[in-house]
Every structure is written in structure tokens, then in C-alpha cells.
């Protein structure tokens, strides 16, 4: 039974063994514009050789950037708002281009290089995350950001093994926290 629990933990908590290919959240900043908090951040995607090969072979890769605004409590934090920005990158061998699809709105962009495509996914600029009215002055808040690689978006045969392969551990290894100034 202990083994089963351990396997489940292992399966769903890949940060336990996330390696060099984990996504990194950097340069987080918050601006208060017209009583709305706006987020700026850079998401650095690192693609392992296996993931790159899969992408070249036509497998589309999907990430979701999860942004949570949490109110800090004594025992635990409560999420007051949660956003998710999903991106899917795909290679088109014939046209030699990479397309990035914003799954939230269905918009699609094409890029002549992988770096260009990843660069377009990495910039989060002026993202409206919360109305200031929802903030209570006496409480403390923070924004938690994490980029999660969607294993479930991979083709079915690849899915189960991707959970156990560090080359597919492309999510952020931890939540990046940023305080929300009242």
C-alpha cells in the first residue's frame, strides 16, 4: 500500500525529480493600473532533447501557466483568483515553421524558428490578474506562478511513460511567489 501511495505521489508530483529541463519563472513584477493588478513575467521554457525530437516529429507540446492570487492564512492560504494561460506549440515540417496556439482564445501565431515561438510564449506583459477591490487592506496576499507541462495533451502512447521520464519533466519545479502590495 505504501508503494502505491509513493507511486501516486511520484506520478503527480514531478517536481520531486524535475531536472534541468524544468520551466523557470523569472522577472516577475506587479503593477497597479487603474485599480487593477497587472502581472509582468518571463517564462523560460527549456526543451529536452527527447521533447525537441518529439516536437520535430510533429508532436505538439502544451504548457499552462497557472497564476493564483492567494490570501495568506494562519494555517493555510486561500485562493481568491486563479488564471491559467495555455499554450500549444507545434512544428510544421513542410513549411518549416512553428505555430503557437493560445488555447485560451484560440489565436495562433507562426514563427520561422523554435526560439521565436518559445520567445512569444515566454512574455507575459500587463496581464490583469485581480481587481484591487477584492483586496482587504488588513490581509496579506501573494501571487503564485507556475508553468505546468501538460502530459495529458501528449499522444496516448507517450503519456504514461512521460510521467516517469525526467526528459519530460518540463514543468516548473516550484511555485514562484510574488507579494501583492496593498
Amino acid at each position: 500500500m505504501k508503494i502505491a501511495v509513493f507511486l501516486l505521489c511520484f506520478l503527480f508530483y514531478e517536481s520531486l525529480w524535475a531536472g534541468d529541463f524544468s520551466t523557470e519563472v523569472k522577472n516577475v513584477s506587479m503593477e497597479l493600473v487603474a485599480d487593477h493588478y497587472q502581472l509582468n513575467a518571463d517564462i523560460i521554457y527549456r526543451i529536452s532533447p527527447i521533447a525537441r525530437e518529439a516536437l520535430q516529429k510533429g508532436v505538439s507540446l502544451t504548457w499552462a501557466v497557472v497564476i493564483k492570487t492567494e490570501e495568506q492564512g494562519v494555517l493555510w492560504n486561500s485562493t481568491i483568483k486563479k488564471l491559467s494561460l495555455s499554450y500549444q506549440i507545434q512544428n510544421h515540417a513542410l513549411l518549416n515553421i512553428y505555430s503557437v496556439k493560445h488555447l485560451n482564445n484560440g489565436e495562433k501565431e507562426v514563427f520561422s524558428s523554435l526560439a521565436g515561438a518559445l520567445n512569444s510564449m515566454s512574455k507575459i506583459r500587463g496581464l490583469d490578474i485581480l481587481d484591487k477591490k477584492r483586496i482587504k487592506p488588513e490581509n496579506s496576499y501573494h501571487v503564485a506562478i507556475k508553468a505546468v507541462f501538460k502530459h495529458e495533451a501528449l499522444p496516448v502512447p507517450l503519456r504514461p511513460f512521460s510521467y516517469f521520464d525526467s526528459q519530460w519533466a518540463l514543468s516548473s519545479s516550484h511555485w514562484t511567489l510574488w507579494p501583492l502590495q496593498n
Partner: protein
Amino acid sequence: MSSATQGSSELSDMYSWLLIGNSLGSIVLFVLIAINAYSLARELKKREAGAKLTTRMVSLFAVLAIAPAAIVFYFSIQFLNQGIDSWFNVEVDRAMEDALELSAESLDQRKRLHLKQVRKLAKEVVGKSQTLIALEMGGMRERVEATEIALFTRQGHVIASNSIDSNDILPLLPGEHTWLQVRQNKEFVSFNQMDDKLLIQVIVIVEDDEPRFMQVLFPVSERIADLADSIDFAFVRYQETTFLRGSLKSSFLLLLSLVLLLSLLAAIWVAFISIRHIVDPVKQLVKGTQAVASGNYRQQLSVVSQDDLGFLVESFNDMTMRIARSRDETKAASIEVEHQRAYLETVLSNLTAGVVSFGSTYKIRTANQAAYRILHIPVSHFVGQTLLDVIVLHPQLTQLWESIQELLENADDVWQQRFAFLGANGRQELLCRGTPLFSSSGERVGTIVVFDDVTDLIQAQKNAAWGEVAKRLAHEIKNPLTPIQLSAERLQHKLAAELSESSAQILQRSTQTIVNQVEALKSMVDDFSEYARPSKKQVEIINLNLLINEVLALYILQTGIRIITVFSAENLMIEADPVSIRQVLHNVFKNAQEAMGGKGQIEVKLSKVMRNNTEFAELAVYDEGCGLSDEQLETIFEPYVTTKTKGTGLGLAIVKKIIEEHGGAIWLDTTYNEGAGFIIQLPIVLI
């Protein structure tokens, strides 16, 4: 899960959860089986009923499930691997790559053509003012059949633009990376998409005093775009499938393994449940049988089902009920038989006659208490042995046992015989009666011998006879003796003076002889009278130790006789006529003295003994005389039996009579061989 693996179903979204669910299901089943197996192992260790049967059935079930499943699994994997491998071959690979290359080459040609066109346009605008360029842009665009044309500053700001769609005021702005490539390579050609339409984006540098960049967007015909899309889609799918070839095999292997594992575990678990359900009545039956074997005939089992096993359980219940009833009846009969046997045993043990039963092989089967009392041998200890075996340990009864053994072997009918033997208490006479025992089928199954000690009876008869003789003698002989004596004396007195001297002397001798013989006859008759007269005249309690010492004092003074006395520490009191007892002691000591011829040693022992739960004073007198012959041993206490030249032979007969009249016994100690040994027992009086 199979559909999910193929990715063609909505279940594909749930594939991982299905795998986890299956894995968890397998784990749960494994745990259940492990618990069942552990429980079974404990039952086996405890040797519980039905455990071995369950183990055998589960093992058989498991083997029957695993063997075909393993074969199917192996062939399925082989088939799948071969099937997946057959999807791919070199020709198809090459054809796909060629098709892609052909398409790419075709598109590249268009890209190169458009690059040339844009290079030309870029040269045309060199040195022209921005206003002029803006005016000419429309014509340029139409000339190269472009969708959009735009001129950018070095920093990427729009200088002028023209679009086929007059509504598009702002041209397509190149991305950061695109500008990077343009600045590095001075030109950029790539496909782009705008409003879901495929375009060829060409950017070249305009070499002027102030370098500028011209971007032209060329449309790709819908047909070509569709074809390109189709080829791209097919190639991507093929490439993806090729890439996933190994994963697909592994995925199928995983899937099949999980399904097989789940199925096997489920089968084994169901086997456990089913077999336990089947074995449960059998287990109950075994437990019931064990209970019956241990004597619990009231065992009843609950009938769970109405199938064959249920019928078996019902039959078992019926059987135990019948057995219990039979057992009760047998028990009651056994108790009755036991009561009868106990009663018979009580009767036998209380019989004064000895009863010994023999089996068909003449081995002793039972013997009552009276047999021991009469024979002074614990005959009941020799159950299972023959009389000849008893002889080895008790040779004193050899003659008796041999005679009875002979009768047992030869007599076919009821026999009766009197046996005389020298027992521990002297001569004994037994009246034996043997009855053969026959079974209901007429087969001889043994013999029962009943015997009684008739020694006292015979002795009493003899004593009575001798008493009668003595009485008659006294009456018939003594009465005429006095007239005879008086007549003889008168003859002497009357005729002595009238006869000659010689005749007178003859008369004198004759009459004297008559008188002497009459005196002798009188003495003999007196002795007989004494023998016939009761000895218990004046009974009183006397100290036997003291009495013996008094009598012995008369003999100690005589020279040549040495008397050794061994007396008990306590004084033994008896209720008797002291004159008679004194006469007994005198007779015994005198006999001993005379037997030794006046020289030798007399040993006198006085002790207290228990006989038939009664305390007796035992006086043993041993002399060093000539002893007694075998013939004398049997008749020494009878009248007219003597070893002496003088005497009437009534001494020991009177002694025996006096002792017996006082409730005692006298016998010869046959174990003493250095002379004669007499043992006298008299009952002790408790004061």
C-alpha cells in the same frame, strides 16, 4: 482502455486515469488475494479442516487461469509487435520524405521567386523619397501580385505600406525574432499566416543612405495551401507515428499486462471466494465428522443450500442423529450390563465359596475374594494366566492346581471332587465343583470352578464321631470295669487261702494282671472322656505371655533342654479356660521335649498377627527332634496317632480340640525342616 490507446476515442483523455484505476484495482485485488492467501496459510499451519482442499483448488484454478492467459498474452504481444512493425517500411518512409521534399522544393521555388521580386523592388526604391515610395507602393504591390507591401525604418517603424485590403491600415508587424534574423541575414523569407490564410513573408534590406526594410506579403493560392496543409498533416502524422512506434509497443504491452494482471487477479480472487463458498460445507462436514469422532454425536450442521452438498449435510445430520440415538441406547444397555456385572461381582465377592472362571484356553478370567481367603493366594492377580503359571510362584499348591488343570482339560461334564492339600494354615480340604460353560452356539467357552473349604466341616464330623466313640467307650467299657476289678480282687481275697501256694501265686499274678489292665483301661477311658468333654469350662481373660512363662518355668529347670523365647513387647490377652490352655501348653512342650529325647533346643515365639481382619496371638514352638513323616503330617492331629511307644495318641487331638473350641487354630509349620514346628493362633481380646 483499448480505444483510449488508439487515441480515437474520448476515452483517450481519461487514459491515464484508466491506467491508474486499473493499477489501483490490481493493487486492491492483490491485497485481497494476499490477505486470503495469508489466511489460508494460517489455516494450513493450524491444520484446519478444508484448508488443503482450498489450497489445491485455488492452485489448480490459478494454474488453469494463468497458463492459457500467458499463452494468449505472449501471442498477442508478438502479434501486436509484428502488426505495428508492419505499418512501417523503408519504401513508405522514403516516399513520405520524397513527397515532403518535393512539396518543400516547390514551395521554396515560390519563396525564391518572391525573394527575387522583392529584391528588385528594394532596388527600385533606393534613393527615392518616402513620399514617392508611398505613392508607388500600390503599383509595386500590384505588379508583383502581393497582398501587402510595407517599408520599415531600421528601428522597425512603418514608413509606408499598401495592402490589397484597403481597410488594413497597419501592415503585419514582424516579430522580434524576425527582425533579429533580418538584421543578421539582411533578408528573410518565411511562411506566415494571417486570417487563416497562408502567406509568404519576404523582408529584404533597402540599401540606402539610411537602411530601410521592405516587407512584402505574397498570397499562397488556396489550392496550394490546402495541398501543403494536407501533405504537412499526413507527414506529421506519419512522423509522429514513427516516433511513437516504441512507445506504442510499450503502451500496448503495458495495457495488455495490466489487463492480464487485473483479469488474473480478479480470477484468483473470485476463485478464492467461490472455492471458500464450495469448501465451506465440506469444512463444516469435516468439523462435524471430527466432532463425531471425538464423541459429540449431537453435532448438527446448518443446511445452507439445497444442492448436492446441502443433501450431504442433511444426510450427515440424519446420520449423527441416528448415531446419537444408538449411542444412547447402547449406553443405557451398557449401564444396565455394568449394573448387572457389578451386582454379580458383589454377589461373587460375598460368596463364602471360592469361584474361579476359566476361558477356553484354561486361562483364569475371574476370581472372587473368597478364593483368596480359602487358598491364601491372590488368584485374581493371575487373570490371563493358567493354573500352571500360578504353580511357578506358589508351588505349595502344585498338586491341587495340577489336579484341577487336568479336570479342566479332560472333563466334558459337571464334575465334583474333594481335594486335600497342605495349605499355609495346615491341612485343608476343598470340595470343588467344575461346570463347563457353553456359548449359545454350543461352543465351549470355558469352565467355572466353585470350591469351598470343608476342612472345618470334615474336622467337626471327625471330632463328633470321635466324641461319640469316646462317650460310648466311657459308658460301655468303664461301667463293667469296676465289677471286673472288684470280682478279681474278691477272687484273690476268697480263694487265696484255699489254694495251694503255687496256685495261690498264679491266682495272685492273674488277679493282679486283671486289676492292672482294668486300671489301664480306666485310664484310657478317662482320656477318651477328657477328649469328649468340652474344654471351655471356666472362661476368663488371661495374660498369655504370663501363662506361657509359668508353664515354661517347669521345663527350664530340666537339664539338657535349652529354651529360647521370643515374645512380643505387649502382653497378649485372650479369653479362655486357663486350665485347658495350660494343658495345651504342657502337651505341646512335653511333645517337643520327648521328640528331642530330653536334649536340645526349643524355640518359643509369641507375636501378634492379623488374620481376616482379626488380631490373633500366634504361638510358634519349634523343636530339634526327629520331625514328622509325610504320612504323619496329614493325620498328626487325629486321635490314636502318635510317634511315641507310650501314650494314647490323644495328646495333639485334645490340643487341637481345645484350641478350636477357643476359636483358634493349630497347624504344623511345614516350612520348618529341622524338627517339628507347631503354630497356635488364639484370638486376642481387646481390653
